[in-house]
């Protein structure tokens, strides 16, 4: 029957998905953050496949057994109000599933929001990643280097990306290293990533930001610590300074190729953090606690507001 064929197709698709993981970018992680996420995804796919299986078995059973064409012509279906125990079952089991998934979600979300386990002791490499029109600027404040549309990182060292935007909201995403985060114009968000394998990884803006959005990609090169040091030395000897005028012309351009400089734009165009944040006010702590009265959607707004200040007051 057609319907069964369709269901079979769905299942085989799931099987293909599970076995063919490694060919899909997101399920082919090269660092601990992406690894955690890939594990969560695969775990949830298995749980959800079981749920689907239960629904589909019941569904096929009902459809094959209780067709009118199979019933006696004078068969009168009974009047059924429902069943207390059955209904309790299909409330209780989903509640348990959701509870399990909640625990997994909360734990993994905390895990991917902090520096990955095993890397807490290392001093992270701070890289500011800013988007403008349809390109990415990467600033290494400690090394005094800036690149455009590519970023070099050492393997096995935590990288703290500090994200912001010179325009529309963008989302910084390197699927094989870890999930994305928004870059916005009035605050700095942080993304902790570690590469455990050397190589070149695709990075992109995933949040629609206008005409050139489709081409807003960058490349991440993960190399050994030694090679990374060598690269820095090489940049220092070969590249030139980033002047304010040059930076402005970069900002104004729609797309540019790869660029390398021996100074960063942070000196003359600081990131929107600390006193440069979009807030334009002092400490907001006392105010945000006062805001808990008033109606529903208002109190929710506080969350973002408080988180907001958390980021900008570091």
């Amino acid at each position: 029957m057609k319907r069964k064929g369709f269901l079979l197709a769905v299942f085989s698709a799931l099987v293909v998905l599970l076995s063919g993981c490694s060919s899909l970018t997101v399920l082919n992680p090269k660092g601990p953050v992406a690894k955690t996420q890939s594990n969560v995804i695969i775990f949830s796919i298995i749980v959800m496949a079981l749920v689907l299986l239960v629904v589909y078995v019941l569904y096929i059973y009902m459809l094959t057994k209780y067709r009118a064409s199979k019933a006696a012509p004078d068969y009168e279906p009974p009047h059924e109000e429902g069943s207390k125990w059955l209904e309790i079952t299909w409330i209780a089991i989903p509640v348990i599933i959701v509870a399990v998934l909640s625990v997994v979600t909360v734990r993994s979300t905390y895990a991917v929001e902090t520096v990955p386990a095993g890397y807490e002791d290392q001093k992270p490499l701070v890289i500011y990643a800013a988007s403008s029109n349809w390109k990415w600027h990467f600033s290494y404040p400690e090394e005094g280097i800036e690149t455009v549309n590519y970023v070099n990182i050492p393997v096995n060292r935590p990288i703290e990306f500090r994200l912001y935007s010179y325009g529309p909201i963008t989302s910084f995403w390197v699927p094989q290293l870890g999930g994305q985060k928004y870059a916005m114009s009035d605050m700095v968000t942080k993304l902790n990533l570690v590469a455990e394998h050397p190589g070149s990884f695709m990075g992109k803006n995933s949040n629609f930001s206008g005409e050139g959005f489709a081409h807003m990609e960058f490349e991440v090169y993960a190399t050994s610590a030694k090679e990374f040091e060598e690269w820095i030395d090489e940049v220092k000897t070969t590249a030139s300074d980033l002047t304010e005028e040059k930076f402005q012309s970069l900002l104004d351009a729609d797309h540019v190729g790869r660029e390398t400089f021996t100074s960063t734009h942070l000196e003359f165009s600081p990131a929107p953090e600390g006193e440069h944040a979009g807030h334009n006010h002092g400490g907001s702590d006392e105010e945000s606690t006062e805001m808990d009265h008033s109606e529903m959607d208002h109190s929710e707004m506080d969350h973002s507001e408080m988180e907001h200040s958390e980021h900008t007051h570091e």
Partner: protein
Amino acid sequence: MKWDEFFVTGEPMIYGAMVSIVVATLAILIGLTYFKKWGYLWREWLTTVDHKRIGIMYIISALLMLFRGGVDGLLMRGQLAKPENGLLDAQHYNEIFTTHGVVMILFMAMPFVIGLMNVVIPLQIGARDVAFPRLNAVSFWLFFAGAMLFNISFVIGGSPDAGWTAYFPLASIEFSPTVGNNYYSLSLQIAGIGTLMTGINFIVTILKMRAKGMTLMKMPMFTWSVLITCVIILFAFPVLTVALALMMFDRLFGSQFFTMANGGMDMLWANLFWVWGHPEVYIVILPAFGIYSEIISTFSRKNLYGYKSMVWSMIVISLLSFVVWAHHFYTMGHGAMVNGVFSITTMAIAVPTGVKIFNWLFTMHKGKIEFTTPMLYALAFIPIFTIGGVTGVMLAMASADYQYHNTMFLVAHFHYVLIPGTVFAVIAGFYYWFPKLFGFRLNERQGKLAFWTIAISFNVTFLPLFFLGLNGMTRRMYTYSESTGYGPLNLIASIGAVGLAIGFIILVYNIYWSFRYAPRDTTGDPWNARTLEWSTHSPVPEYNFAIEPTVTGLDPFWEAKKGGHQLYQGKFEEIHMPNNSGQPVILAILFFFWGFFMVFSWWTPAIISGIAILIMLAVRSFERDHGRHIPVKEIQETESRLRGEQV
């Protein structure tokens, strides 16, 4: 402003659209004049306050918008069919995915659902009309004015191009300097006022105008779903009203709500948008659940299993729908704590939804399932929607969402929820209630052919997108390079889209064919159904029920057919009906022009239109129209004619 800025120029496809719009308009105008139908159109349709006719107009508009949104979808799939395709450029693609989203959600799904509500609810609760028939007409015409205003944007001035979510600062005047997003804010505002009024109207109708004996817990499930939906509308739409107003102030009057300088907060827009936007999803899905409940129960020849838990699960869903909106932007960096909370509330929705799925399955248990066209859509809904649902749970897990967000995985998920959820439901409802409105059934053979084409093509179109998403393909990219490897799956999806188009063509042909050749149904109850709407004639007389029905339980008509209960007790009495009025359509035309002038910042004509709107409100306030009464003799004549007796 120069004329070449006013009209969109330089795009052959748009020139084609302009020509076809002009030709179609001329054809309609000439046709109406030639066949002398102007009077008929005005008397019977434009001025009507009859809920059934308003419902039909909603559904016709929704089908037109389905065509518009569908063409947008086909163009998108055409562009993505192969790498580096040149069918559309970036700007055009951006406009198309924006209008596709807006049209499909706000001008197709909503009006289709509201159209079915209009047609069915008064009949299902045994009422003669809605509580405020005139307001109902205003709602429809405001929706229509909003939809038309939005649709002219692609030939006059340019369509919005910042996505249907219109995130700031992208949608600000700085980054989107064309009038496109002005159209967005004003047309949605006008249509939104209409929707809010519909919500109020139907809550009052359902609460106050039910048949004698129909307590809340004896209401049909579709009526319950509409009641809950209208409550969501009531609480969600004012948020959209505010959001759109602030957008308009930012774009037209230079305020600083969402701007990049002077303290503006871009994510405030995202919050406001989704505080409305997530409940909006349930506004289009809950009535669908109601429709499926009616259909599955009817064609299993069995009462709905677990009625009470069905009602409670909808109430729980409606409450949860207001506390999950931040899951649309886990990635804005509000930390693990907030994301964890929103993950849990979001996943919690799976529980009441699961309750509904199991109740539907057990309604079929020990039933006598008949595979009619509406039932096929309802049956296809269960397995497909469950995929949408479980992928929704996957997306709800914040840590994993960092990898799905903004990808084709998300696109696949919401199409897997909205198409079987809403589109299949409104088509099923359309097939199911069509004979009630027109007195004949749509051809079943063609209907089933359309169904299989649509259901299979749907999966071909959207299943590949899950894999594309996991492979790193983001949404809203107008092109991709060959080296990404996205080509083959995109091609499959595009082939599926062609199949969907064919399915809808068969569906339209089915309607056309059935109008010409389908045999008349004289029983008024072609499906052997259970609820009150089937107990009156098809097509339904303007007063719905000659005698107001009395109800004792759920499925009152079924009980009556089994011989347990007399639905119509008493004798014919005079029936009080509202008069038709031209005011709603005139008001909506004024709103249309007000919106249009505001879009282009032409203040003087905008102010004049605004004053004209106020005058129309005053005219209404000073009017004393107490309706008319249908005499008993006329009712008797109508009734015997509808019963097929010769008068």
